[in-house]
């Protein structure tokens, strides 16, 4: 089977399996081909032996072809593209049609079976035409036509078997003319009149209509499609129309003028059109593959450089020849489809206007391509996108996912800010209405009492005592307010004591079970405390419970549970601002919360907060760490180190996230406080250092694709590739986010090269660096053509291969060729060259160009030695002409 996703083609395991499968597959193909050949020969021999008519050789050939052509075409197509569903259907059709040969038998039973089988063959033809090229019936109309065909055979044809004495004659597949055997399955010996006058004509008419319908569906598909799809459909349509029209005409003519030569000829046309139609399928498949190949080449050329979601979409739209293409990416964390910007999207339903092709890798969805099914089939999408764009899609998917989670983070942060604001307003209101008013009243009351002291000391003393009580109330209020803002017990003694104190204040009987708790960061303690309090207050207000139990424990995470024995409730999505507030607060420290409740079941609120990495350092580092460790990308904050003159000489690591530790292979402790120059060889002279330095003064974010190369036995290759983004934080600090794109870089390089070179391995290929006309690569065949030793040509000037060798000629030539290629895309030139031994050589060269990761712009020439044909030509000038 073809692996439609990008597996691991070079892993020994998969490679071995594929090879074994291929081997087993080819044995199977040989067996199928042999069986098909035997069957075909059998049908031929049977016809010659049994048929009585003069033109029996024609009929024999027809039967042989009817079996051999679809099997051969199917086997051939399968070999070209193992797993092609339509190829399998073609093979099956050849075997399925074989029993129609029985229609040549003299034995009436065999003859009858052969004739009945002929009807089934017609239905299968309609199916084949409509299922091309995917092997599936995609629209309701297509399915309807096939079902109608089955229904006509079942209702209007098969029942006649029991009542007619003869099958309709003549029949091009039986060749018995006037002497055909009787129908062996007739029950009784008379044919009811209505069968002849109604049922049989009705069958004929409906069959003709279905044929025409199938041809019409195909024609409409062609008018609706452009590009890729149309190229494959045209040959099929041409033969299908011939076949369908001829078959319809034959059925009609047989009814009115059965023994005329015209009827006979049309019958043969209808029958011979079947193997022709099968060849049409084959031709269609190849043209289609050819178009896919073109699309791949187009795509491969444009694939260099950084990709944005929008550019990737445009590239795919161009390659797939479908301007309506849309891409949705799978986002793991929310678990839904998002667009390139991270906004959630809903995929359309598969129908005749929009098709959705989902691409997966390692069983996980990556992207969904929404396209027009009449422009490009699902198979083409898989083929094209699966080959080239998978890596880019995967990258974009991560990008989109990051955006989606950032959006979520942003929302949650806004909610927290709003909650904090509400809290502030409440505190202000409490202060204003409570303590402040009491203090003001006290102020005025004291003044009044002062007036009274002289006149009525007793009354003044009573008033003072009353004012003292007022002071007590004010104190209480301030204390309770302070406790609400941040309970002093929580600060001094931690969660267990603070919650026990809160439990004592509760109107419900509340028990706090907390064992083995430590102290945690103020953020975590405060979040857990207020979540428990919120849950407790909810229980007081809504649950009707009599008892509440708060349980806290630390087991890798800090866990809390608030359980009441109240009436519970049916939680609806988005239940209450209180719950959202709790979730947001927990989310701010990386925690989560679950609510277990139901009518009559009580309520249980369970929350968890990770605390392991929590006691490391100061608060800012803590928050930063938690936020950045969630990133899949590497992240670091570096501070500039300056010398006495103020020049930046290095950067010291202030922060790195988990991903960065993994990427550099150093733990956080090994990095914090050390300088990059200290840790990375060659950092001071690298472009990275200069980029970091420039970043300090940059006004916006910057981006760098940093690629390091290594020299191996095979030559230079990408050692590491990084997509780096950075921004200045002020105060001499920069924040850097980077992502390992080594695989993508290598793949890009390889793909670009392969698309240009591998296709032409049998021809001489060389790459010329545009900047100085130096040969940077020549394949063995080229060296052979020009008579050089392997590897000898590398570093040669292109001019060395040229016949008119004058100073500067090579560069001039290459520039001229580049200009031609720029203008035409590709070009074919005749080049007069010089072999190593000085003898002249004529080459025909296909030229194209691309941007090479190492050498910049490179001219690719694919050369054929045409000395025999061209050396006698008098023209020496190299003429350029458009390619293809």
């Amino acid at each position: 089977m073809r692996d439609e996703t990008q597996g691991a083609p070079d892993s020994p395991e998969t490679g071995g399996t594929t090879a074994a499968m291929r081997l087993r597959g080819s044995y199977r193909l040989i067996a199928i081909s042999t069986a098909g050949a035997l069957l075909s020969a059998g049908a031929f021999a049977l016809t010659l032996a049994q048929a009585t008519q003069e033109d029996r050789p024609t009929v024999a050939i027809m039967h042989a072809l009817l079996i051999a052509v679809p099997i051969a075409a199917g086997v051939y197509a399968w070999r070209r593209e193992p797993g092609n569903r339509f190829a399998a259907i073609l093979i099956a059709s050849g075997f399925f049609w074989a029993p129609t040969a029985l229609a040549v038998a003299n034995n009436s039973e065999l003859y009858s079976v052969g004739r009945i089988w002929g009807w089934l063959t017609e239905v299968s033809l309609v199916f084949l035409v409509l299922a091309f090229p995917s092997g599936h019936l995609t629209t309701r109309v297509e399915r309807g036509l096939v079902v109608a065909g089955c229904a006509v055979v079942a209702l209007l044809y098969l029942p006649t078997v029991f009542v007619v004495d003869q099958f309709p004659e003549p029949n091009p597949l039986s060749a018995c003319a006037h002497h055909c055997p009787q129908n062996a399955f007739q029950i009784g010996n008379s044919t009811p009149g209505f069968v002849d006058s109604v049922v049989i004509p009705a069958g004929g008419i409906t069959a003709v209509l279905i044929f025409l319908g199938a041809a019409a569906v195909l024609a409409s598909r062609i008018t609706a499609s452009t590009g890729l799809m149309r190229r494959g459909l045209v040959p099929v349509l041409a033969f299908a129309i011939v076949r369908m029209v001829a078959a319809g005409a034959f059925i009609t003519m047989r009814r009115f003028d059965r023994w005329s030569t015209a009827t006979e000829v049309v019958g043969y046309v209808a029958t011979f059109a079947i193997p022709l139609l099968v060849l049409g399928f084959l031709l269609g498949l190849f043209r289609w593959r050819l178009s896919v190949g073109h699309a791949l080449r187009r795509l491969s050329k444009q694939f260099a450089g950084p990709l944005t979601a929008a550019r990737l979409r445009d590239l795919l739209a161009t390659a797939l020849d479908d301007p309506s293409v849309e891409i949705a990416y799978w986002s793991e964390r929310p678990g839904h489809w998002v667009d390139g910007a991270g906004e959630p999207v809903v995929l359309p339903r598969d129908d005749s206007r929009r098709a959705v092709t989902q691409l997966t890798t390692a069983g996980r969805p990556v992207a969904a391509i929404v396209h027009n099914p009449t422009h490009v089939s699902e198979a083409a999408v898989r083929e094209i996108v699966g080959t080239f764009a998978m890596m880019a899609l995967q990258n974009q998917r991560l990008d989109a996912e990051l955006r989606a989670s950032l959006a979520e983070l942003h929302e949650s942060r806004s909610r927290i800010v709003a909650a904090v604001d509400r809290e502030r307003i409440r505190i202000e209101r409490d202060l204003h209405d409570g303590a402040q008013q009491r203090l003001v009243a006290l102020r005025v009351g004291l003044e009044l009492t002062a007036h009274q002291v002289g006149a009525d000391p007793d009354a003044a003393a009573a008033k003072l005592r009353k004012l003292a009580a007022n002071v007590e109330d004010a104190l209480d209020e301030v204390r309770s307010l302070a406790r609400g803002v941040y309970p002093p017990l929580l600060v001094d003694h931690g969660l267990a004591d603070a919650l026990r104190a809160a439990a004592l204040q509760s109107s419900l009987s509340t028990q706090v079970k907390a064992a083995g708790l430590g102290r945690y960061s103020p953020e975590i303690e405060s979040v857990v405390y207020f979540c428990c309090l919120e849950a407790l207050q909810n229980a007081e207000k809504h649950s009707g419970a009599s008892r509440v139990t708060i349980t806290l424990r630390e087991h890798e995470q800090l866990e809390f549970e608030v359980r009441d024995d109240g009436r519970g409730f049916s939680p609806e999505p988005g239940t209450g601002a209180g719950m959202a507030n709790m979730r947001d607060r927990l989310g701010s420290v990386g925690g989560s919360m679950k609510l277990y409740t139901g009518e009559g079941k009580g309520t249980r609120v369970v929350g968890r907060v990770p605390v392991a990495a929590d006691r490391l350092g100061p608060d800012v580092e803590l928050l930063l760490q938690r936020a950045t460790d969630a990133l899949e990308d590497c992240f670091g904050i570096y501070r500039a180190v300056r010398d006495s003159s103020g020049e930046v000489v290095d950067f010291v690591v202030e922060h790195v996230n988990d991903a960065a530790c993994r990427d550099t292979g150093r733990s956080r402790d090994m990095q914090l406080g050390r300088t990059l120059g200290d840790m990375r060889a060659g950092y001071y002279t690298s472009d990275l250092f200069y980029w970091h330095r420039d970043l300090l003064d940059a006004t916006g974010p910057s981006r760098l694709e940093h690629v390091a190369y290594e020299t191996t036995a095979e030559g230079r290759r990408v050692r590491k590739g990084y997509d780096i983004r950075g921004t200045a934080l002020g105060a001499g600090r920069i924040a850097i986010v980077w992502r390992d794109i080594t695989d993508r870089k290598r793949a890009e390089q390889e793909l670009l090269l392969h698309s240009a070179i591998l296709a032409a391995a049998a021809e001489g290929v060389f790459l010329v660096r545009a900047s100085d006309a130096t040969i940077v690569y020549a394949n063995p065949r080229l060296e052979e053509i020009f008579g050089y030793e392997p590897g000898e040509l590398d570093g040669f000037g292109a001019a060395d291969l040229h016949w008119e060798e004058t100073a500067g000629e090579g560069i001039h030539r290459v520039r001229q060729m580049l200009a031609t290629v720029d203008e035409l895309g590709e070009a074919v030139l005749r080049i007069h060259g010089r072999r190593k031994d000085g003898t002249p050589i004529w080459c025909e060269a296909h030229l194209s160009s691309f941007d090479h990761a190492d050498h910049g712009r490179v001219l690719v020439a694919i050369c054929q030695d045409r000395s025999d044909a061209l050396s006698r030509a008098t023209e020496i000038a190299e003429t350029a002409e458009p390619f293809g």
Partner: protein
Amino acid sequence: MAGEATDRVQTLVVDDQEAFRDVMRDLVSVTPGFELAGEAASGEAALALVGELDPQLVLMDVRMPGIGGIEATRVLVAGHPDLPIVLVSVEDLNGLPGVIGQCGAAAFVRKQDLRPQRLRELWEEAQQQLSYSVSTRS
């Protein structure tokens, strides 16, 4: 004026805080020449009571639930142009909305500055200039 039936200034105290109403009651009762006409806990209640009690002076808290002191003053002044209304608040003028100058109040005073002396001064000023404006805001 109806208030001149007795010789003491009939004063209505409007405040949502009971603690403050307590102390205002004391203030009015110890200030010679003043008498408590009644108390209201909201702007709305004050509007109703003014018609009923026909006070000569209103001490109105600025910040109360419901329509609040500023709006209540605006309505009262429209219906009783001769009734002086003194706005009171724990905030100083800078902490209060600018519209306080346009609501028609006779004067503004901080709650903590209220004492018998100040109360008498407010009344005298109001007598001299019924349309006293609080545009003295600095």
